[in-house]
């Protein structure tokens, strides 16, 4: 019997690069066009600098203030990263426990889902009070709490949305509960976990920056944004926002990259090109 299945087309390196360029070209055009439009409108309509500075001024400030901005950005990024690690690991651990003892989950999950609706950021002044206004820890805690719920809900869904026949198959091999987790539930949950982890990167950055607003070290980006805006140095504030955005995007992209490496088998990482 002959079996015919086309191997997955990989293409040459040049071909792949070419496809990448094609995939990205529209987005690049929109970005460049958007910045150009912004610059043109601000110059042309003579918009006041404190309302909206032109991108060229922001770029210049980014360069002249690069040391302050970079160190403030890094300081805040540490807060976000620390909180992200704390929140995500706690969430995954909780999900594992709840998936193992399901009655516990039915008792606890309604509260977790309700807690998810609380504007947790409002607790920032309280964590500042608990862990010290100037310490990075208080911001990490608020970032961690923000990260916790989406990662918990996603991970638990991934761990429990296993097809019944996969479990039956494992039982036919006399698999222990631990083996079912290791070989079926956890790999099955990976796409869900990564979805949670990516959402959490954004939340961690928000948590860290907004946490800074309720009082924080002068080294922090959030404090920098607030301080510059307070003295009408809006170009500087915009530059700090750009730094925050770039860090947030880089954080997200980094986790996304790890996802692709970990889950090369998954449909979502197969690539669209055929």
């Amino acid at each position, binding site marked *: 019997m002959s*079996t015919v*299945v086309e191997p997955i087309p990989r293409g040459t390196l040049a071909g792949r690069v070419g496809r990448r360029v094609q995939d990205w070209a529209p987005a690049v055009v929109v970005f460049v066009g958007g910045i150009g439009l912004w610059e043109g409108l601000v110059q042309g309509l003579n918009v006041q600098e404190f309302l909206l500075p032109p991108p060229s001024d922001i770029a210049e400030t980014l360069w002249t203030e690069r040391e302050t901005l970079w160190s403030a950005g890094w300081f805040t990024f540490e807060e976000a990263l620390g909180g992200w690690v704390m929140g995500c690991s706690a969430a995954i651990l909780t999900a594992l426990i709840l998936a193992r003892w399901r009655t516990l*989950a039915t008792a606890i999950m309604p509260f977790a889902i309700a807690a998810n609706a609380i504007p947790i950021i409002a607790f920032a002044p309280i964590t500042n009070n608990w862990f010290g206004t100037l310490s990075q820890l208080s911001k990490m805690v608020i970032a961690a709490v923000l990260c916790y719920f989406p990662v918990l809900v996603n991970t638990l869904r991934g761990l*429990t949305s296993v097809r019944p026949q996969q479990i*039956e198959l494992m*039982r036919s091999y006399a698999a222990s509960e631990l083996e079912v987790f290791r*070989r079926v539930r956890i790999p099955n949950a990976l796409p869900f976990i990564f979805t949670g982890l990516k959402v959490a990167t954004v939340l961690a950055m928000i948590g860290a920056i907004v946490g800074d607003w309720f009082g924080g070290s002068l080294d922090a980006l959030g404090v920098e944004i607030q301080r510059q805006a307070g003295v009408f140095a809006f170009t500087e504030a915009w530059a700090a926002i750009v730094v925050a955005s770039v860090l947030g995007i880089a954080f997200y992209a980094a986790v996304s990259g790890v996802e692709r490496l970990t889950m090369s088998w*998954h449909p979502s990482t197969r690539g669209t090109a055929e």
Partner: protein
Amino acid sequence: MSVVSLEGVSKEFGQGGVVAVQAIDLEIGEREFVSLIGPSGCGKSTLLRIIGDLIQPTRGEVTVKGKTAHRARLGRDYGIVFQDAVLFDWRTVAKNISLPLEMMGWDRRKRAERVKELVDLVELTGFEGHHPWQLSGGMQQRVSIARALSFNPALLLMDEPFGALDEMTRERLNLELLRIWEASGSTVVFVTHSISEAVFLSTRVVVMSARPGRVVGVLDVDLAQPRTADMREEPRFAELIRDVRRLLRRGGGFDVEEPTPTGEEDYIVAEERLR
């Protein structure tokens, strides 16, 4: 010695007491190929799972290779194949096949050797490194069969393994399965609702009635071994088909309009979803 022995096996589901199967007596000997056939909802899949100790019977005795079904499962005495291939997306073909071997603690070299044998057996050479989504449905099911055979179980339980495949692929895989059965020397219990498939494959066909599932009759299939594709055109084949149909009719298999939405789900498994 019989490989599978059922004595007065019944299964009721839920408080309402939906009787899935009732008072089943059945002996299956070594190297037999036994098909369970019956209308949707007759409990044939339930019966298969009772043999595999995946569902507990309400009453009756189940013996597999002289042990209780439970001890047979713990002793990994059977391999199972479902209607879906139930492959793990994150594992390659080779790794899907070697999953049970990993769990049994085979060392890497022995596993690789065995996987190679099996890949040859199911004719998937060259696809060891592929992932399930890169394979056709028929190929996926062959991986699933190879996985079930990997640890040389004496018993192979198959739950409508070719039910989701097109007719051509199904007939081809029927022949392949017979060749594999011949080569592996195992006993097969095969659930199907295709009459011709049951007759073509089996040494015996067990015909079950509509719910509650009971054994209406057992038919010895006296077609020569090994089976060939031409046998489907023999007069004897047609006679056997007619006999199975008569038994099915006697069991109410043709006049029951089953309100089962999926048609296949005549067993009940714990809901895995969390609300």
